[in-house]
């Protein structure tokens, strides 16, 4: 069923407890009730809850006091204050003190559902994954690698299994699937975690540049070598060297690399002193090396050296369950980075994401969310904000007259602000009177709310 989500209703009024918990049960949540803050704390000792509806005013310990304690003891639980009309001040104080939101008694039935959905999305609790959440938190130690799909859980387990050993690992997977993150996670979990993690994108260098990039060079080794320079091999001493796009390196470089691996030492370009190669090599490829080996483009002996163990990272389209979690993760990050109030992804937008194939995998998803946060308005990512969203016929005809465009834009903003005239006016950068006049001029009508 949709919800392994545990909700607690804390209110001294029986009738509120009963009707709210009754409704929540009908909506499929697991609900417990408590008649006082003290009872609530007792219940919390026995089990975890994802959401709490908390009455502001209660005899004994009141809502605000309980909220204070919960902040310490249950930081992950979303607390929604239940407030009567007269006591909005208390609710606002509660919001400042870390309540997730508040509801005015009586609630619009739609509000509760939407609010919980928001909490779920926000907490990344999407559908039947509560049980996995603890595990995910565990996996989060793996360098913010996120994924709740079976496929990713397997990857996480492999990472933990191979991290200890010194063996070289080949990470395969399409572009943007997170191969570098996997490499970092292995590094972080390994005994070399205190050493450096040095990444080289082999595809980004010409053969000559890649050589000096990896091996370093002595002063005067070639014309441009005005100074001596340490290569990435040296920088990676004591740590991990990550060779991204290893499949594209030249035959000559393959031979050099093989030698480093066999002799566990190397020379700077133009150097005469052997340097010990004390690093573990993790490499990644987004193309099948088997084919390249058959065609003798890639050396089989090097392949065996690099590929003691393979970790395959599946493409995003094969683990769509991860999309909501990843999307919300990126949303939070970009909202924070860009200082925008986004905290929610609309159902439609999520549906679009679930339907899309993501040829660029997680990187493409990351970019899509970033763009949506940049271009979007309000707190909710809408489907239209997604780069791959196919325009349904909209109010703004591309070749429309200025009037039509203006009308369309006003309609859009009004809908976004749910016809909150002040907000809409401020978004549009006009005053309210002007907006009213425009609404009249274009004959716009607020859709009746059922």
């Amino acid at each position: 069923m949709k919800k392994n989500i545990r909700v607690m209703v804390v209110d001294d009024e029986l009738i509120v407890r009963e009707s709210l918990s009754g409704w929540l049960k009908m909506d499929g949540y697991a609900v417990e009730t408590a008649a006082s803050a003290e009872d609530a704390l007792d219940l919390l000792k026995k089990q975890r809850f994802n959401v709490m509806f908390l009455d502001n005013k209660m005899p004994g310990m009141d809502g605000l006091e309980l909220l204070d304690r919960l902040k310490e003891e249950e930081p992950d639980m979303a607390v929604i204050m239940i407030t009567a009309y007269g006591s909005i001040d208390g609710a606002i104080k509660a919001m400042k003190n870390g309540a997730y939101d508040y509801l005015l008694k009586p609630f619009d039935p739609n509000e509760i559902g939407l609010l919980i959905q928001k909490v779920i999305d926000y907490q990344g609790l999407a559908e039947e994954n509560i049980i996995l959440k603890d595990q995910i938190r565990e996996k989060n130690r793996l360098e913010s690698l996120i994924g709740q799909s079976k496929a990713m859980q397997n990857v996480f387990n492999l990472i933990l299994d191979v991290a200890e050993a010194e063996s070289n690992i080949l990470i395969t997977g399409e572009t943007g699937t997170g191969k570098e993150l996997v490499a970092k996670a292995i590094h972080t979990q390994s005994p070399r975690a205190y050493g450096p993690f040095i990444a080289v994108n082999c595809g980004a260098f010409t053969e000559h540049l890649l050589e000096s990039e990896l091996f370093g060079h002595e002063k005067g080794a070639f014309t441009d070598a005005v100074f001596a320079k340490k290569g990435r091999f040296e920088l990676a001493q004591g740590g991990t060297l990550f060779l991204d796009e290893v499949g594209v390196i030249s035959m000559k470089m393959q031979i050099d690399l093989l030698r480093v691996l066999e002799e566990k030492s190397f020379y700077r370009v133009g150097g005469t002193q052997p340097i010990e190669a004390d690093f573990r090599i993790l490499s990644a490829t987004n193309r099948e090396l088997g084919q390249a080996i058959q065609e003798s483009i890639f050396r089989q002996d090097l392949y065996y050296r690099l590929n003691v163990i393979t970790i395959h990272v599946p493409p995003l389209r094969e683990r769509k369950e991860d999309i909501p979690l990843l999307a919300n993760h990126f949303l939070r990050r970009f909202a924070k980075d860009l200082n925008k109030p986004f905290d929610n992804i609309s159902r439609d937008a999520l549906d679009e994401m679930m339907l899309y194939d993501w040829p660029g995998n997680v990187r493409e998803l990351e970019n899509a969310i970033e763009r949506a946060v940049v271009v979007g308005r309000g707190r909710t990512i809408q489907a239209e904000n997604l780069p791959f969203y196919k325009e349904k016929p909209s109010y703004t005809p591309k070749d429309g007259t200025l009037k039509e465009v203006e009308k369309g834009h006003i309609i859009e903003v009004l809908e976004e602000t749910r016809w909150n005239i002040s907000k809409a006016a401020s978004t549009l950068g006009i005053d309210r009177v002007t907006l009213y006049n425009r609404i009249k001029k274009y004959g716009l009508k607020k859709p009746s709310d059922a």
Partner: protein
Amino acid sequence: MPEDNFIGLRPYGQIDLDILEVLVKELRQLFPFPIVILEACAPPDFAYDRGRQQYLAKAILNDLVKNAPQGCKRIAGLTDVDLFLPILTFVYGEAMLPGQAAVVSTYRLSGKNSENPVPFEMLAKRVVKEVVHELGHTFNLVHCDNKDCVMSFAHELDHIDKKAVRFCRYCSVLFSDALGQGL
């Protein structure tokens, strides 16, 4: 009562007979029980809340159970007054989860509270969907995420109009589970 193990429909006050007839016909398609129209009661004044100027749905559920005839497996009340739960601004209907009674109001479904009263056909369909939905709750079904399913929670009339009269595949299975458990 001639029959046993039936679903009773209880009108509170004036409920259009044509609607009741449509209901009987549609419910027969979905529930493997006889559908019986019970004697009408007076409007549910006992449930009136002065402060809210609405009617407390829970009170009507209790009244339905108290006055249910023998052999009545489920009883669904129908009324034209505006229903509420203490915590909610209004409800189209309410039910016991699981339990014997459900109630549905035509007040908002008919659009009489707004400027756009709806034609009979449309109202009848809405009432059928809401009664099926609330009866679904009495068989322990909870809200379904499938928006087309009759068990999806519809707040907007629009959504009620869009959703089907049927249980989705998933809810059908849960419904037969409930029957199998003797609910």
